[in-house]
């Protein structure tokens, strides 16, 4: 009974939150609803007994949405409504419906044809944290390592992009040196 109540409660909350995310024109509402929705999704993992994935869902998405807030802070006055540029509404609605139907079809197809197989049956007496580890380092080792390499590439690229002039510190310079640098920048820009 508890599981049913929890499921319907969190299903309702998640749908409401994501509905707010896509319909509101207030950046702060959208971000907050997105964060809340992502955290509510973790409840489904807990209901299914996948505690580890649930906790990871909370940790990962709080961090991710926090970064989105930082961008929101930079690009918008978050206390005002954003004027959205609405193109052809029919195209937007059509594409959105089509992609939603396709996603549902992709996930439902194996269930309908009862074609789902369990490659790695549950091992007795092993917690789900260990199970995730076992599957990651046997069946999914190559995707796991590829993802790690891709993240490393992204990190190196990020450092290269952001790391220009990292050795300079404006607080340690006097006014003339700062002026010199500013003039140099002007030449580069013009």
């Amino acid at each position, binding site marked *: 009974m*508890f599981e049913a109540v929890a499921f319907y409660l969190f299903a309702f909350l998640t749908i409401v939150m994501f509905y707010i995310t896509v319909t509101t024109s*207030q950046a*702060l*509402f959208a971000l*907050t609803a997105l*964060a809340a929705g992502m*955290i509510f999704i973790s409840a489904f993992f807990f209901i299914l007994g996948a*505690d*580890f994935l*649930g*906790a*990871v869902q*909370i*940790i990962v998405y*709080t*961090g991710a949405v*926090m*970064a989105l*807030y*930082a961008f*929101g*802070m930079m690009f918008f006055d*978050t*206390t005002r409504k954003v004027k959205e540029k609405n193109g052809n509404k029919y195209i937007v609605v059509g594409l959105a419906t089509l992609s939603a139907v396709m996603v549902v079809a992709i996930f439902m197809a194996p269930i309908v044809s009862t074609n789902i197989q369990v490659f790695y049956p549950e091992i007795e007496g092993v*917690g*789900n*944290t260990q199970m995730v580890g076992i599957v990651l380092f046997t069946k999914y080792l190559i995707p796991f390592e590829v993802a790690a390499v891709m993240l490393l590439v992204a990190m190196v690229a990020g450092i290269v992009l952001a790391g220009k002039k990292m050795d300079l510190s404006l607080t340690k310079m006097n006014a003339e040196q700062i002026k010199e640098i500013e003039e140099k920048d002007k030449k580069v820009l013009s």
Partner: protein
Amino acid sequence: MDNAYLIETIIKVVVILLIFSALAGIGTYFERKVLAFMQRRLGPMNVGPFGLLQVGADGIKLFTKEDIIPTNVVGPIFKIAPVITAATAFMAAAAIPFLPSFELFGHEVHPIVADINIGILYVLGVMAVGLFGPLLGGMASANKFSLLSAARAAAVFISYEVVTGLAILAPIMMVGSLSLIDFNNYQIEHGWIVWSQPVAFVLFWIAAFAETGRTPFHLIANDHEIIDGFGTEYSGMRWGLFFIGEYANMFFISFVIPILFLGGFGDGSVLGAVALFGKMAFFFFFFLWTRAAWPDVRPDQLMWLCWKVLMPVAVINVVITGLVMMF
């Protein structure tokens, strides 16, 4: 699920909520007294014996003060932000064992709301959500100083979380479980983890200061701007909720550090339980001591410390632990 379990859980939740919201109030009294003695003042003296009733006076003031919602703020977000801080602090407490299990009227009581097998991960994750409170409060406030404070909250968040995660990884590798009760039981057999993982202990301790937003990482509510950062526009009980959240977080992290590194409640005797409270009191006192003794750092200094010093040290610690465990 039987009814006895349900009733027991509800009682535990209510007890934890009541005790720790009261402790948060008394925590402010301790903080004032400790700071006062370290700065050669008297602290609160006038209300009640030794100023003990000051807590009640503050409570009455907070509860009866008008709840002002300024114009131009984003109303719903502004109202919900303090609740996030307070609620997540108490949600995190669900996986913390406060005492060893004991018998009460012939019924065995486990003083932990839910012994989930990912305890420490859950506690740290939910505590991290608490930082959304200052962030949202600052961004919704329509006040430039609050917005700056929200930006600093984001900076604090992205710096400390990696350090906590990596610092705790080495002890987790040794224990082989994420449950706080398993941590406690491991330390009964093998001795305190702090002796085998001193680096992880220090790193986690430093990160705990950033996590609770205490001096020297008290950048969220920036004191040297004279105003209260994200709390500038708040009044009455909404501001009080931020405070309750912060102090409850301090208490909970002061419980988590001894359970992880300093033997927790030991073998479950009365002495062990008292020892856990003693350790908790020491860590709580240390928060106040640091506040009296150290200045705040700048946000860029915090990020430098976390990313360029603490994170590499934590990674090296994990690698060395792995090598030692392998051979």
